[in-house]
């Protein structure tokens, strides 16, 4: 399937884009992350969380949606 990945803050500096569309045939967040870390090794050192449907998800969550978001540490206020 086609998957849109969005990156925020320091993560977008590493990927050099705020959004990209990839082809993804696996199942879980963990498999997606493996793929993204291979593409962007510098992500390995960064702390981040993954959101699907505007909700934080864990690594074993199934990817249902067409949009996945990578979020660095929150720093509001």
């Amino acid at each position, binding site marked *: 399937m086609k998957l849109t990945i969005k990156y*925020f803050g320091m993560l977008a500096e590493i990927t050099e884009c705020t959004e990209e569309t990839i082809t993804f045939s696996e199942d879980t967040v963990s498999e997606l992350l493996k793929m993204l870390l291979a593409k962007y090794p510098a992500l390995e050192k960064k702390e981040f969380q993954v959101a699907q449907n505007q*909700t934080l998800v864990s690594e074993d969550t199934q990817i249902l949606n067409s949009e996945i*978001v990578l979020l*660095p540490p*929150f*720093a*509001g*206020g």
Partner: protein
Amino acid sequence: MNKERKPKAVFIEGAISAEFIGNSIAKHQTKTTIGAHDIFLGQVRADIIDGKTIKAIEYTAYEEMANEKFHEIREATFKKFNLTCMHIYHSLGKVNAGEICLFVFVSSPRRVEVFNAIEYLVNTIKEQVPIFGKEIFEDQSHQWKVNS
């Protein structure tokens, strides 16, 4: 208390002005069941890091999720505390050192409610809302803000 409230706009482009805050206070003077207001303001500090001074923070957010979260936090806070009203505003874009980036305003008949509510609200916002801050130094270099 199971009133459903419509999501309210939280994000403001750029700094939040003192005048905006003053006007917001003035609007509450017709609400005569209120006995206590508590207002929290977050202001951008000109921290010095390795000899370089922060001159601004540029805020971005994952807005769809942030608005959803702000709405959830509002509802939870109204359930937890006896509040008459609640307002939350957060900046997006560039806010200079000395300017205000967060304005949280709670009102209640009683002071104990506003003390507890303001602390809960500000801490929960900082913890749960996907907002990011790029701290820009005088020489235009930057680092990413981390909440402590």
